[in-house]
Protein backbone atom coordinates (compact mmCIF):
# COMPACT_ATOMS: atom_id res chain seq x y z
CA UNK A 1 0.00 0.00 0.00
CA UNK A 2 1.74 3.19 -1.10
CA UNK A 3 0.05 6.14 0.49
CA UNK A 4 1.20 9.64 1.31
CA UNK A 5 2.56 10.15 4.83
CA UNK A 6 -0.27 11.24 7.13
CA UNK A 7 0.01 14.94 7.90
CA UNK A 8 -0.60 16.27 11.41
CA UNK A 9 -3.31 18.85 11.87
CA UNK A 10 -1.81 22.28 11.36
CA UNK A 11 -3.86 23.70 14.24
CA UNK A 12 -2.14 21.40 16.74
CA UNK A 13 1.38 20.55 15.56
CA UNK A 14 1.95 18.67 18.85
CA UNK A 15 -0.02 15.76 17.36
CA UNK A 16 2.86 15.10 14.98
CA UNK A 17 4.96 13.73 17.85
CA UNK A 18 2.70 10.67 17.87
CA UNK A 19 3.03 7.95 15.24
CA UNK A 20 -0.04 7.45 13.09
CA UNK A 21 -1.18 5.20 10.27
CA UNK A 22 -3.67 6.59 7.78
CA UNK A 23 -6.82 4.47 7.49
CA UNK A 24 -8.97 7.08 5.81
CA UNK A 25 -8.11 10.15 3.76
CA UNK A 26 -9.87 13.46 4.01
CA UNK A 27 -12.38 15.04 6.39
CA UNK A 28 -15.70 13.50 7.36
CA UNK A 29 -18.70 15.63 6.34
CA UNK A 30 -20.22 18.26 8.59
CA UNK A 31 -23.89 18.50 7.65
CA UNK A 32 -26.71 20.72 8.75
CA UNK A 33 -29.85 18.78 9.68
CA UNK A 34 -32.46 21.04 8.14
CA UNK A 35 -35.47 18.90 9.03
CA UNK A 36 -34.64 17.56 12.47
CA UNK A 37 -33.20 20.86 13.74
CA UNK A 38 -36.36 22.96 13.15
CA UNK A 39 -38.44 20.08 14.50
CA UNK A 40 -36.60 20.57 17.83
CA UNK A 41 -36.48 24.37 17.63
CA UNK A 42 -32.69 24.45 17.29
CA UNK A 43 -30.04 24.71 14.59
CA UNK A 44 -28.52 21.25 14.37
CA UNK A 45 -25.27 20.06 12.80
CA UNK A 46 -24.01 16.50 12.50
CA UNK A 47 -20.32 15.62 12.32
CA UNK A 48 -20.55 12.47 10.23
CA UNK A 49 -17.85 10.25 11.67
CA UNK A 50 -20.06 7.34 10.61
CA UNK A 51 -18.94 8.15 7.04
CA UNK A 52 -15.23 7.42 7.10
CA UNK A 53 -14.64 4.70 4.58
CA UNK A 54 -13.19 1.76 6.49
CA UNK A 55 -15.56 -1.23 6.76
CA UNK A 56 -18.76 0.75 7.50
CA UNK A 57 -16.91 3.45 9.42
CA UNK A 58 -17.22 4.98 12.86
CA UNK A 59 -15.33 6.91 15.52
CA UNK A 60 -12.90 4.10 16.24
CA UNK A 61 -11.20 4.61 12.88
CA UNK A 62 -9.67 7.83 14.24
CA UNK A 63 -8.59 6.13 17.47
CA UNK A 64 -7.08 3.19 15.59
CA UNK A 65 -4.95 5.51 13.48
CA UNK A 66 -3.03 6.37 16.65
CA UNK A 67 -3.15 2.96 18.34
CA UNK A 68 -1.91 1.16 15.25
CA UNK A 69 0.56 3.95 14.53
CA UNK A 70 2.17 2.99 17.81
CA UNK A 71 1.83 -0.69 16.90
CA UNK A 72 3.51 -0.13 13.53
CA UNK A 73 6.35 1.73 15.24
CA UNK A 74 6.81 -1.29 17.50
CA UNK A 75 6.89 -3.66 14.52
CA UNK A 76 3.57 -5.39 15.20
CA UNK A 77 2.09 -7.95 12.81
CA UNK A 78 -1.09 -8.67 14.78
CA UNK A 79 -3.82 -6.66 16.50
CA UNK A 80 -5.30 -8.07 19.69
CA UNK A 81 -8.31 -6.29 21.17
CA UNK A 82 -11.19 -6.94 23.56
CA UNK A 83 -14.83 -5.84 23.37
CA UNK A 84 -18.49 -6.77 23.54
CA UNK A 85 -19.94 -9.30 21.06
CA UNK A 86 -21.30 -6.39 18.98
CA UNK A 87 -18.27 -4.14 19.45
CA UNK A 88 -17.69 -1.61 16.69
CA UNK A 89 -14.14 -1.14 17.96
CA UNK A 90 -13.41 -4.83 17.48
CA UNK A 91 -14.85 -4.82 13.94
CA UNK A 92 -12.85 -1.76 12.94
CA UNK A 93 -9.65 -3.01 14.60
CA UNK A 94 -10.01 -6.22 12.57
CA UNK A 95 -10.63 -4.24 9.37
CA UNK A 96 -7.70 -1.90 10.08
CA UNK A 97 -5.47 -4.92 10.73
CA UNK A 98 -6.44 -6.33 7.33
CA UNK A 99 -5.74 -3.00 5.62
CA UNK A 100 -2.25 -3.06 7.10
CA UNK A 101 -1.73 -6.73 6.25
CA UNK A 102 -1.76 -7.78 9.94
CA UNK A 103 -3.67 -10.62 11.62
CA UNK A 104 -6.76 -9.74 13.68
CA UNK A 105 -7.27 -11.52 17.03
CA UNK A 106 -10.15 -10.51 19.28
CA UNK A 107 -11.57 -11.34 22.66
CA UNK A 108 -15.36 -11.04 22.81
CA UNK A 109 -16.94 -10.39 26.22
CA UNK A 110 -20.49 -11.39 27.12
CA UNK A 111 -21.23 -7.86 28.26
CA UNK A 112 -24.87 -7.59 27.22
CA UNK A 113 -27.48 -10.02 28.55
CA UNK A 114 -29.04 -10.77 25.18
CA UNK A 115 -29.80 -14.16 23.72
CA UNK A 116 -31.24 -12.90 20.45
CA UNK A 117 -29.96 -14.86 17.40
CA UNK A 118 -29.33 -11.67 15.39
CA UNK A 119 -27.38 -10.14 18.26
CA UNK A 120 -25.22 -13.24 18.46
CA UNK A 121 -24.65 -13.78 14.73
CA UNK A 122 -25.30 -10.65 12.64
CA UNK A 123 -24.07 -7.04 12.72
CA UNK A 124 -20.50 -6.54 13.83
CA UNK A 125 -20.10 -10.22 14.66
CA UNK A 126 -20.82 -11.23 11.05
CA UNK A 127 -18.31 -8.66 9.82
CA UNK A 128 -15.67 -9.92 12.29
CA UNK A 129 -16.11 -13.33 10.72
CA UNK A 130 -15.94 -12.03 7.15
CA UNK A 131 -12.71 -10.28 8.06
CA UNK A 132 -11.35 -13.67 9.09
CA UNK A 133 -10.84 -12.67 12.71
CA UNK A 134 -9.73 -15.27 15.24
CA UNK A 135 -12.19 -15.01 18.12
CA UNK A 136 -11.45 -15.79 21.77
CA UNK A 137 -14.40 -15.91 24.15
CA UNK A 138 -14.51 -14.23 27.54
CA UNK A 139 -17.64 -15.05 29.54
CA UNK A 140 -17.45 -12.33 32.22
CA UNK A 141 -19.17 -9.19 30.99
CA UNK A 142 -18.51 -6.34 33.38
CA UNK A 143 -15.04 -7.11 34.59
CA UNK A 144 -12.65 -4.83 32.76
CA UNK A 145 -9.58 -5.79 34.77
CA UNK A 146 -10.15 -9.52 34.29
CA UNK A 147 -10.81 -9.00 30.56
CA UNK A 148 -7.51 -7.13 30.23
CA UNK A 149 -5.65 -9.82 32.22
CA UNK A 150 -7.05 -12.54 29.97
CA UNK A 151 -6.03 -10.46 26.96
CA UNK A 152 -2.45 -10.40 28.26
CA UNK A 153 -2.50 -14.19 28.52
CA UNK A 154 -3.62 -14.48 24.89
CA UNK A 155 -0.88 -12.02 23.92
CA UNK A 156 1.72 -14.15 25.71
CA UNK A 157 0.52 -17.24 23.82
CA UNK A 158 0.73 -15.38 20.49
CA UNK A 159 4.27 -14.21 21.29
CA UNK A 160 5.30 -17.77 22.07
CA UNK A 161 4.07 -18.66 18.56
CA UNK A 162 6.40 -16.02 17.12
CA UNK A 163 3.76 -13.34 16.51
CA UNK A 164 4.16 -9.67 17.44
CA UNK A 165 0.75 -8.55 18.75
CA UNK A 166 -0.15 -4.93 19.44
CA UNK A 167 -2.62 -5.15 22.33
CA UNK A 168 -5.45 -2.66 22.79
CA UNK A 169 -6.66 -2.84 26.40
CA UNK A 170 -9.77 -1.09 27.66
CA UNK A 171 -8.76 -0.52 31.27
CA UNK A 172 -7.74 2.81 32.76
CA UNK A 173 -4.23 1.60 33.60
CA UNK A 174 -3.33 1.66 29.89
CA UNK A 175 -2.49 4.86 27.98
CA UNK A 176 -5.36 6.62 26.16
CA UNK A 177 -3.47 6.69 22.86
CA UNK A 178 -6.63 6.51 20.75
CA UNK A 179 -7.98 9.69 22.34
CA UNK A 180 -5.53 11.62 20.16
CA UNK A 181 -7.75 10.74 17.21
CA UNK A 182 -10.51 12.85 18.77
CA UNK A 183 -8.15 15.70 19.56
CA UNK A 184 -7.64 15.71 15.81
CA UNK A 185 -11.39 15.37 15.16
CA UNK A 186 -12.01 18.49 17.25
CA UNK A 187 -9.47 20.39 15.13
CA UNK A 188 -11.08 19.19 11.91
CA UNK A 189 -14.60 20.07 13.13
CA UNK A 190 -13.52 23.51 14.35
CA UNK A 191 -11.89 24.22 11.00
CA UNK A 192 -15.05 23.20 9.12
CA UNK A 193 -17.25 25.33 11.39
CA UNK A 194 -15.00 28.36 11.08
CA UNK A 195 -14.99 28.05 7.30
CA UNK A 196 -18.77 28.41 7.44
CA UNK A 197 -18.66 31.07 10.12
CA UNK A 198 -20.58 28.92 12.63
CA UNK A 199 -20.20 28.86 16.41
CA UNK A 200 -22.28 26.13 18.10
CA UNK A 201 -23.34 26.65 21.70
CA UNK A 202 -23.17 22.93 22.57
CA UNK A 203 -21.47 19.76 21.38
CA UNK A 204 -23.27 16.47 22.16
CA UNK A 205 -21.17 13.30 22.04
CA UNK A 206 -21.49 9.70 23.35
CA UNK A 207 -19.44 8.85 26.44
CA UNK A 208 -18.50 5.16 26.75
CA UNK A 209 -14.82 4.23 27.09
CA UNK A 210 -14.47 7.99 27.40
CA UNK A 211 -11.73 8.46 24.83
CA UNK A 212 -13.90 10.01 22.13
CA UNK A 213 -15.50 12.37 24.64
CA UNK A 214 -12.24 13.21 26.45
CA UNK A 215 -10.26 13.53 23.21
CA UNK A 216 -12.76 15.93 21.68
CA UNK A 217 -12.84 18.00 24.88
CA UNK A 218 -9.04 18.22 25.04
CA UNK A 219 -8.80 19.10 21.34
CA UNK A 220 -11.38 21.85 21.74
CA UNK A 221 -9.69 23.35 24.81
CA UNK A 222 -6.25 23.10 23.25
CA UNK A 223 -7.59 25.28 20.42
CA UNK A 224 -9.06 27.73 22.91
CA UNK A 225 -12.57 26.62 21.89
CA UNK A 226 -14.70 26.93 25.04
CA UNK A 227 -17.87 25.17 23.81
CA UNK A 228 -19.54 22.91 26.42
CA UNK A 229 -19.04 19.24 25.42
CA UNK A 230 -22.00 17.22 26.75
CA UNK A 231 -21.16 13.54 27.13
CA UNK A 232 -24.15 11.19 27.02
CA UNK A 233 -23.45 8.12 29.18
CA UNK A 234 -23.88 4.89 27.22
CA UNK A 235 -22.30 2.41 29.62
CA UNK A 236 -21.63 3.70 33.15
CA UNK A 237 -23.67 6.09 35.27
CA UNK A 238 -22.61 9.70 35.61
CA UNK A 239 -21.02 9.16 39.05
CA UNK A 240 -18.61 6.61 37.55
CA UNK A 241 -18.22 8.24 34.16
CA UNK A 242 -17.28 11.74 35.36
CA UNK A 243 -14.01 10.78 37.07
CA UNK A 244 -13.19 8.40 34.21
CA UNK A 245 -13.52 11.07 31.53
CA UNK A 246 -11.71 13.65 33.68
CA UNK A 247 -8.80 11.26 34.21
CA UNK A 248 -8.68 10.33 30.53
CA UNK A 249 -8.87 13.99 29.46
CA UNK A 250 -5.97 14.92 31.75
CA UNK A 251 -3.93 11.98 30.45
CA UNK A 252 -4.63 12.92 26.84
CA UNK A 253 -3.66 16.53 27.60
CA UNK A 254 -0.47 15.08 29.10
CA UNK A 255 0.22 13.09 25.93
CA UNK A 256 -0.17 16.28 23.90
CA UNK A 257 2.31 17.96 26.19
CA UNK A 258 1.00 21.50 25.83
CA UNK A 259 0.58 21.96 29.59
CA UNK A 260 -3.18 22.28 29.08
CA UNK A 261 -5.25 22.02 32.29
CA UNK A 262 -8.66 20.34 32.22
CA UNK A 263 -10.92 21.54 35.05
CA UNK A 264 -13.38 19.24 36.79
CA UNK A 265 -16.35 21.34 35.69
CA UNK A 266 -15.19 21.10 32.07
CA UNK A 267 -16.27 17.45 32.07
CA UNK A 268 -20.03 17.20 31.65
CA UNK A 269 -21.72 13.80 31.61
CA UNK A 270 -25.39 12.90 31.80
CA UNK A 271 -26.97 9.49 32.30
CA UNK A 272 -30.67 10.42 31.96
CA UNK A 273 -31.16 8.02 29.04
CA UNK A 274 -28.87 5.17 30.21
CA UNK A 275 -31.45 2.86 31.80
CA UNK A 276 -31.71 -0.13 31.70
CA UNK A 277 -27.98 -0.27 30.85
CA UNK A 278 -25.23 -0.71 28.28
CA UNK A 279 -26.36 -2.12 24.96
CA UNK A 280 -29.99 -2.47 26.08
CA UNK A 281 -32.40 -0.40 24.09
CA UNK A 282 -34.96 1.88 25.75
CA UNK A 283 -37.95 3.83 24.50
CA UNK A 284 -36.09 7.18 24.25
CA UNK A 285 -33.39 5.60 22.08
CA UNK A 286 -35.95 3.89 19.86
CA UNK A 287 -37.75 7.22 19.40
CA UNK A 288 -34.47 9.00 18.60
CA UNK A 289 -33.50 6.38 16.00
CA UNK A 290 -36.92 6.61 14.29
CA UNK A 291 -36.95 10.41 14.35
CA UNK A 292 -33.47 10.76 12.83
CA UNK A 293 -34.27 8.17 10.14
CA UNK A 294 -37.65 9.69 9.25
CA UNK A 295 -36.58 13.34 9.23
CA UNK A 296 -33.02 13.10 7.89
CA UNK A 297 -32.43 9.54 6.63
CA UNK A 298 -29.73 9.62 9.30
CA UNK A 299 -29.10 6.09 10.55
CA UNK A 300 -28.26 5.81 14.24
CA UNK A 301 -27.40 2.71 16.22
CA UNK A 302 -29.04 1.51 19.45
CA UNK A 303 -25.88 1.49 21.62
CA UNK A 304 -24.05 4.79 20.99
CA UNK A 305 -25.30 7.28 18.42
CA UNK A 306 -29.01 6.52 19.00
CA UNK A 307 -28.62 6.90 22.74
CA UNK A 308 -26.60 10.06 22.22
CA UNK A 309 -29.40 11.52 20.10
CA UNK A 310 -31.86 10.45 22.80
CA UNK A 311 -29.74 12.44 25.26
CA UNK A 312 -29.82 15.45 22.95
CA UNK A 313 -33.62 15.24 22.68
CA UNK A 314 -33.80 14.98 26.48
CA UNK A 315 -31.62 18.08 26.92
CA UNK A 316 -33.85 20.05 24.54
CA UNK A 317 -37.00 18.81 26.28
CA UNK A 318 -35.64 19.80 29.70
CA UNK A 319 -34.55 23.20 28.41
CA UNK A 320 -30.91 22.46 29.28
CA UNK A 321 -30.35 23.13 25.59
CA UNK A 322 -32.56 26.21 25.10
CA UNK A 323 -34.66 26.70 21.98
CA UNK A 324 -32.76 28.62 19.33
CA UNK A 325 -29.42 27.06 20.30
CA UNK A 326 -26.94 25.90 17.71
CA UNK A 327 -25.95 22.31 18.49
CA UNK A 328 -23.32 19.98 17.07
CA UNK A 329 -24.13 16.26 17.27
CA UNK A 330 -21.12 13.99 16.84
CA UNK A 331 -22.27 10.87 14.95
CA UNK A 332 -19.86 8.14 16.01
CA UNK A 333 -21.19 5.44 13.67
CA UNK A 334 -22.05 1.96 14.87
CA UNK A 335 -24.34 1.34 11.91
CA UNK A 336 -23.76 -2.45 11.69
CA UNK A 337 -25.27 -2.82 15.17
CA UNK A 338 -28.65 -1.82 13.71
CA UNK A 339 -28.75 -5.26 12.10
CA UNK A 340 -27.87 -7.00 15.35
CA UNK A 341 -30.75 -5.23 17.12
CA UNK A 342 -33.30 -5.81 14.39
CA UNK A 343 -35.67 -7.62 16.76
CA UNK A 344 -35.75 -4.44 18.91
CA UNK A 345 -36.18 -2.04 16.01
CA UNK A 346 -37.99 -3.64 13.11
CA UNK A 347 -41.67 -3.71 12.38
CA UNK A 348 -42.88 -7.18 11.32
CA UNK A 349 -41.30 -8.49 8.09
CA UNK A 350 -43.02 -7.64 4.81
CA UNK A 351 -44.62 -11.03 4.18
CA UNK A 352 -45.92 -11.53 7.70
CA UNK A 353 -47.38 -8.00 7.72
CA UNK A 354 -49.39 -8.87 4.62
CA UNK A 355 -50.81 -12.00 6.21
Amino acid sequence: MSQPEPQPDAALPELAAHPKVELWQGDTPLEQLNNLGPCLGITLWAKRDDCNGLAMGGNKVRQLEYYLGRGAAEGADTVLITGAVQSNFVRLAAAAARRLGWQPEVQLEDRVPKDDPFYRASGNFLLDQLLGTRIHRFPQGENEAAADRNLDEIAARLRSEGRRPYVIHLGLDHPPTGGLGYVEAACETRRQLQRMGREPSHVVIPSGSGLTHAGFLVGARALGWRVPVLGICVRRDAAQQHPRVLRRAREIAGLLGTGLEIAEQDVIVDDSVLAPGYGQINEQTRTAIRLAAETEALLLDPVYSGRCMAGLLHFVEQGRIPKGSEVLFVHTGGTPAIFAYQSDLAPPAIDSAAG
Partner: protein
Amino acid sequence: MELVYQANERDLRIDHLLHATGSCGTQASLVVGLKAMNAHIPLMGITVRLPKAEQEEIVYNLAQKTAEKIGCPGVVARDDVTANSDYVGEGYGIPAPSTLAAIDLFARLEGILLDPVYSGKCAAGLIDLCRKGFYEKTDRAVFLHTGGSTALFAYLSSFGTSAPR
Protein backbone atom coordinates in the same frame (compact mmCIF):
# COMPACT_ATOMS: atom_id res chain seq x y z
CA MET B 1 -15.26 12.48 -14.39
CA GLU B 2 -14.30 12.28 -10.73
CA LEU B 3 -12.35 9.09 -11.38
CA VAL B 4 -10.53 10.62 -14.35
CA TYR B 5 -9.62 13.71 -12.30
CA GLN B 6 -8.36 11.57 -9.43
CA ALA B 7 -6.29 9.44 -11.80
CA ASN B 8 -4.83 12.55 -13.43
CA GLU B 9 -3.98 14.09 -10.06
CA ARG B 10 -2.01 10.99 -9.16
CA ASP B 11 -0.57 10.53 -12.60
CA LEU B 12 -2.23 7.12 -12.67
CA ARG B 13 -2.74 5.31 -15.94
CA ILE B 14 -5.87 3.13 -15.80
CA ASP B 15 -5.89 0.16 -18.18
CA HIS B 16 -9.18 -1.37 -17.08
CA LEU B 17 -12.27 -0.30 -15.19
CA LEU B 18 -14.73 -2.85 -13.80
CA HIS B 19 -18.04 -2.51 -12.06
CA ALA B 20 -21.22 -4.43 -11.34
CA THR B 21 -24.04 -3.76 -13.76
CA GLY B 22 -27.66 -4.53 -13.12
CA SER B 23 -30.18 -1.96 -14.31
CA CYS B 24 -27.67 -0.71 -16.94
CA GLY B 25 -27.93 2.95 -15.87
CA THR B 26 -24.58 3.01 -14.10
CA GLN B 27 -22.73 1.42 -17.00
CA ALA B 28 -24.43 3.55 -19.65
CA SER B 29 -23.62 6.81 -17.90
CA LEU B 30 -20.07 5.71 -17.09
CA VAL B 31 -19.30 4.82 -20.68
CA VAL B 32 -20.72 8.14 -21.88
CA GLY B 33 -18.63 10.04 -19.33
CA LEU B 34 -15.45 8.20 -20.23
CA LYS B 35 -15.97 8.64 -23.96
CA ALA B 36 -17.04 12.26 -23.70
CA MET B 37 -13.85 13.02 -21.75
CA ASN B 38 -11.83 10.98 -24.22
CA ALA B 39 -10.38 9.10 -21.25
CA HIS B 40 -9.25 5.95 -23.09
CA ILE B 41 -10.25 3.70 -20.23
CA PRO B 42 -11.90 0.44 -21.32
CA LEU B 43 -14.94 -0.30 -19.19
CA MET B 44 -16.31 -3.73 -18.42
CA GLY B 45 -19.65 -4.26 -16.73
CA ILE B 46 -19.95 -7.54 -14.85
CA THR B 47 -23.62 -8.37 -15.08
CA VAL B 48 -25.52 -9.49 -12.02
CA ARG B 49 -28.73 -10.42 -13.81
CA LEU B 50 -28.91 -10.41 -17.62
CA PRO B 51 -26.97 -12.36 -20.27
CA LYS B 52 -24.19 -10.47 -22.06
CA ALA B 53 -25.93 -9.73 -25.38
CA GLU B 54 -29.13 -8.48 -23.77
CA GLN B 55 -27.22 -6.31 -21.29
CA GLU B 56 -24.99 -4.77 -23.96
CA GLU B 57 -27.98 -3.92 -26.12
CA ILE B 58 -29.79 -2.11 -23.32
CA VAL B 59 -26.65 -0.29 -22.15
CA TYR B 60 -25.82 0.80 -25.72
CA ASN B 61 -29.31 2.20 -26.33
CA LEU B 62 -29.36 3.97 -22.99
CA ALA B 63 -25.86 5.35 -23.63
CA GLN B 64 -27.02 6.84 -26.95
CA LYS B 65 -29.86 8.70 -25.22
CA THR B 66 -27.60 9.83 -22.39
CA ALA B 67 -24.98 11.10 -24.85
CA GLU B 68 -27.62 13.12 -26.69
CA LYS B 69 -28.85 14.59 -23.43
CA ILE B 70 -25.40 15.92 -22.50
CA GLY B 71 -24.80 17.22 -26.01
CA CYS B 72 -22.38 14.56 -27.24
CA PRO B 73 -24.54 12.50 -29.62
CA GLY B 74 -22.84 9.45 -31.09
CA VAL B 75 -19.86 9.58 -28.76
CA VAL B 76 -20.35 5.94 -27.75
CA ALA B 77 -19.76 3.23 -30.35
CA ARG B 78 -21.30 -0.22 -30.10
CA ASP B 79 -17.97 -1.85 -29.28
CA ASP B 80 -17.34 0.58 -26.40
CA VAL B 81 -20.00 -1.34 -24.51
CA THR B 82 -18.68 -4.54 -22.97
CA ALA B 83 -20.59 -6.72 -20.57
CA ASN B 84 -19.54 -10.03 -19.07
CA SER B 85 -22.20 -12.35 -17.72
CA ASP B 86 -19.96 -15.23 -16.65
CA TYR B 87 -20.35 -14.53 -12.95
CA VAL B 88 -24.12 -14.26 -12.50
CA GLY B 89 -24.35 -17.84 -11.21
CA GLU B 90 -27.89 -19.09 -10.76
CA GLY B 91 -29.40 -15.66 -11.03
CA TYR B 92 -29.99 -12.22 -9.59
CA GLY B 93 -29.59 -12.06 -5.83
CA ILE B 94 -28.28 -15.61 -5.55
CA PRO B 95 -24.62 -15.57 -4.53
CA ALA B 96 -22.47 -18.08 -6.45
CA PRO B 97 -19.59 -19.86 -4.69
CA SER B 98 -17.24 -17.50 -6.57
CA THR B 99 -19.19 -14.50 -5.15
CA LEU B 100 -18.71 -15.69 -1.58
CA ALA B 101 -15.05 -16.47 -2.21
CA ALA B 102 -14.53 -12.96 -3.61
CA ILE B 103 -16.23 -11.35 -0.60
CA ASP B 104 -13.95 -13.38 1.64
CA LEU B 105 -10.81 -12.45 -0.24
CA PHE B 106 -11.54 -8.70 -0.28
CA ALA B 107 -12.38 -8.71 3.44
CA ARG B 108 -9.28 -10.67 4.44
CA LEU B 109 -6.76 -8.96 2.21
CA GLU B 110 -8.01 -5.39 2.28
CA GLY B 111 -10.68 -5.06 4.98
CA ILE B 112 -13.08 -4.03 2.20
CA LEU B 113 -16.69 -5.17 2.57
CA LEU B 114 -18.53 -6.20 -0.59
CA ASP B 115 -22.11 -7.38 -0.97
CA PRO B 116 -23.48 -10.67 -2.33
CA VAL B 117 -25.70 -9.17 -5.04
CA TYR B 118 -23.54 -6.62 -6.92
CA SER B 119 -19.99 -5.84 -5.86
CA GLY B 120 -19.27 -9.44 -4.80
CA LYS B 121 -20.09 -10.75 -8.29
CA CYS B 122 -18.02 -8.03 -9.90
CA ALA B 123 -15.07 -8.93 -7.67
CA ALA B 124 -15.51 -12.59 -8.60
CA GLY B 125 -15.12 -11.51 -12.22
CA LEU B 126 -12.03 -9.46 -11.47
CA ILE B 127 -10.38 -12.34 -9.61
CA ASP B 128 -11.21 -14.92 -12.30
CA LEU B 129 -10.07 -12.67 -15.15
CA CYS B 130 -6.76 -12.16 -13.32
CA ARG B 131 -6.34 -15.88 -12.85
CA LYS B 132 -7.16 -16.58 -16.50
CA GLY B 133 -4.50 -14.13 -17.62
CA PHE B 134 -6.98 -11.71 -19.20
CA TYR B 135 -4.92 -8.83 -17.77
CA GLU B 136 -1.20 -8.26 -18.23
CA LYS B 137 0.82 -8.40 -15.02
CA THR B 138 1.66 -4.71 -15.33
CA ASP B 139 -1.91 -3.61 -16.05
CA ARG B 140 -3.66 -1.25 -13.65
CA ALA B 141 -7.26 -2.12 -13.05
CA VAL B 142 -9.77 -0.03 -11.08
CA PHE B 143 -12.57 -1.84 -9.30
CA LEU B 144 -15.53 0.50 -8.87
CA HIS B 145 -17.14 -0.45 -5.56
CA THR B 146 -20.82 0.26 -5.99
CA GLY B 147 -21.72 -0.29 -2.32
CA GLY B 148 -24.61 -2.43 -1.21
CA SER B 149 -22.82 -3.69 1.89
CA THR B 150 -25.97 -3.43 4.01
CA ALA B 151 -27.20 -6.48 2.05
CA LEU B 152 -24.53 -8.54 3.83
CA PHE B 153 -26.81 -8.72 6.85
CA ALA B 154 -29.72 -9.95 4.74
CA TYR B 155 -27.53 -12.80 3.51
CA LEU B 156 -26.41 -13.82 6.99
CA SER B 157 -27.17 -17.49 6.34
CA SER B 158 -25.02 -17.57 3.17
CA PHE B 159 -21.88 -17.06 5.22
CA GLY B 160 -22.25 -20.08 7.46
CA THR B 161 -21.70 -17.92 10.51
CA SER B 162 -21.52 -19.86 13.71
CA ALA B 163 -23.14 -17.88 16.48
CA PRO B 164 -21.06 -17.56 19.62
CA ARG B 165 -22.28 -19.61 22.51
